[in-house]
């Protein structure tokens, strides 16, 4: 019954299992945590390696001897300008303060999505499942389309870009410098298990913008009574302080860390409960209320606290979420670190709902239809847009300056090797 028990598959299964458990690329010949393979924690999750046989070559590092001989940081800029003998990396990037983006997140940050095409019989066709293998080998996540580190065009027609693409647009020297270290089920309490997958050399690499966005699992679980399992403010304080100490010992000086608050998830029931679930649309026989009840009954709900007909429980869950957000705010205002500045940002789901309604959208259109829980691509990109504008307004130094050499970089190196 277990395909991995077949002798010839044992080894590869072990490797895949390790990659997923440790959130590091399955295919990484030089073990620098960057890969030339897309899924299984490959370049869909972190910048594509441009030389997977040399562990000193990877995205985000400071250039080796101004990259005269090779592209040591995979930003596609290297060699010497024949006109004046100046290395291109020196000419175009020196002083532009390149920086990377790193997300420490959960399934929302990884952009968890079960495609509705896979379960909607009325629209099902041969092409419906073409992306299933990619999704399965990315743990049903789509980080390549996510709000923080997305670099591919997604399925929504929204114009907003991910934070990574905005950083790249601002300074083309940031090309490929992204890491999406998100994991389904991640919370403040289990981040420790995979934070070692963060790849940043304090001396050799550029500074980074790190976003800590554990937005649900500290109050979300599938228990019949979810409250006892919820993280307390004291537990959160202790773990997040530990996480920040880890970051201070790994991030290059001049980095920035953002703590994201938690949402008010009562949004889900309020906007979905009486709508039909994709499985119930053909015969109008299954609403999200029934779907949530089914998940909770089986104790596999991603968030019983908010995906419940019990108003008291929903309110309790939101209260705990708010307490945890206040705790994060307190940490951000009271703790100082040598290698990074620390900020707190609200998870502004209400605000992006208003923005979406201003554009003529409906709130329920911001949630993944199959699980009725995760923010979808539109929501993630609107959240990215709001975060970017807030940072640009309040802390412009975080994003770095516009690189005046962007046009020249484009002219000489085109798409810089793409992604």
């Amino acid at each position: 019954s277990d395909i991995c028990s077949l002798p010839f598959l044992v080894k590869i299964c072990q490797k895949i299992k390790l990659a997923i458990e440790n959130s590091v690329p399955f295919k990484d010949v030089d073990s620098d945590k960057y890969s030339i393979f897309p899924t299984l924690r490959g370049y869909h999750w972190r910048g594509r390696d441009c030389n997977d046989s040399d562990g000193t070559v990877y995205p985000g590092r400071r250039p080796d001897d101004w990259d005269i001989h090779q592209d040591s940081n995979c930003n596609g800029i290297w060699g010497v300008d024949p006109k004046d003998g100046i290395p291109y990396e020196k000419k175009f990037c020196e002083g532009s303060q390149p920086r990377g983006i790193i997300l420490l997140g959960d399934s929302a940050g990884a952009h968890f999505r079960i495609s509705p095409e896979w379960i909607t019989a009325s629209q099902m066709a041969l092409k419906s499942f073409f992306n299933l293998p990619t999704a399965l080998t990315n743990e049903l996540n789509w980080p390549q389309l996510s709000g923080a580190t997305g670099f591919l065009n997604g399925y929504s027609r929204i114009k907003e870009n991910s934070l990574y693409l905005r950083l790249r647009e601002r300074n083309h020297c940031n090309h490929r410098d992204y890491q999406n270290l998100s994991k389904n089920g991640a919370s403040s309490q289990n981040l420790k298990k995979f934070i070692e997958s963060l790849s940043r050399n304090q001396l050799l690499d550029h500074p980074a913008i790190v976003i800590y966005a554990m937005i649900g699992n500290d109050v979300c679980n599938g228990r019949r009574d979810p409250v006892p399992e919820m993280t307390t403010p004291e537990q959160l304080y202790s773990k997040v302080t530990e996480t920040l100490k880890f970051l201070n010992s790994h991030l290059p000086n001049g980095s920035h860390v953002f703590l994201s608050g938690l949402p008010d998830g009562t949004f889900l029931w309020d906007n979905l409960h009486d709508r039909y679930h994709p499985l119930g649309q053909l015969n109008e026989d299954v609403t999200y209320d029934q779907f949530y009840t089914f998940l909770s009954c089986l104790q596999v709900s991603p968030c019983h606290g908010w995906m419940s007909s019990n108003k008291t429980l929903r309110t309790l869950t939101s209260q705990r979420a708010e307490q945890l957000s206040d705790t994060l705010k307190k940490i951000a205002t009271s703790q100082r670190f040598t290698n990074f500045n620390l900020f707190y940002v609200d998870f502004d789901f209400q605000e992006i709902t208003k923005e979406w309604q201003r554009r003529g959208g409906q709130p329920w259109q911001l949630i993944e239809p199959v699980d009725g829980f995760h923010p979808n691509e539109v929501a993630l990109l609107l959240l990215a847009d709001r975060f970017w504008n807030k940072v640009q307004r309040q802390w412009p130094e975080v994003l770095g300056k516009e690189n005046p050499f962007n046009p020249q970089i484009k002219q000489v190196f085109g798409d810089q090797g793409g992604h």
Partner: protein
Amino acid sequence: PSNGHICIGCVVVVSVIEQLAQVHNSTAQASMERLCSYLPEQLFLKSTCYLVVSMFGPDIIKLLSADMNADVVCHTLEFCKQDAGQPLCHLYPLPKAPWEFTLEKARQMVKRSPTLKYSRSD
């Protein structure tokens, strides 16, 4: 995956089979063949589909042909189980006939099936 995830997986797959048959006005068997034909070869998806159909198809066909819904099919094939003292978990509205009666009738229909020798984890 936990037992809960196995149950959900079964209910979703049987729902899709049932609804494909409805949409294309076809038999449950034709619907299963159609679903498997849509799946890509990668990751053994298509062959796994045909394997599952060969194992459980006959029972699913019998039960769907008797107008049993996905909840009944999955409880009958023991992908879903109601443990003692635990509530009955179902996605669709309950059948008009009493649940126990419906389930027993369904079990009789597949009683001699070789399928049920597989443990649920399979």
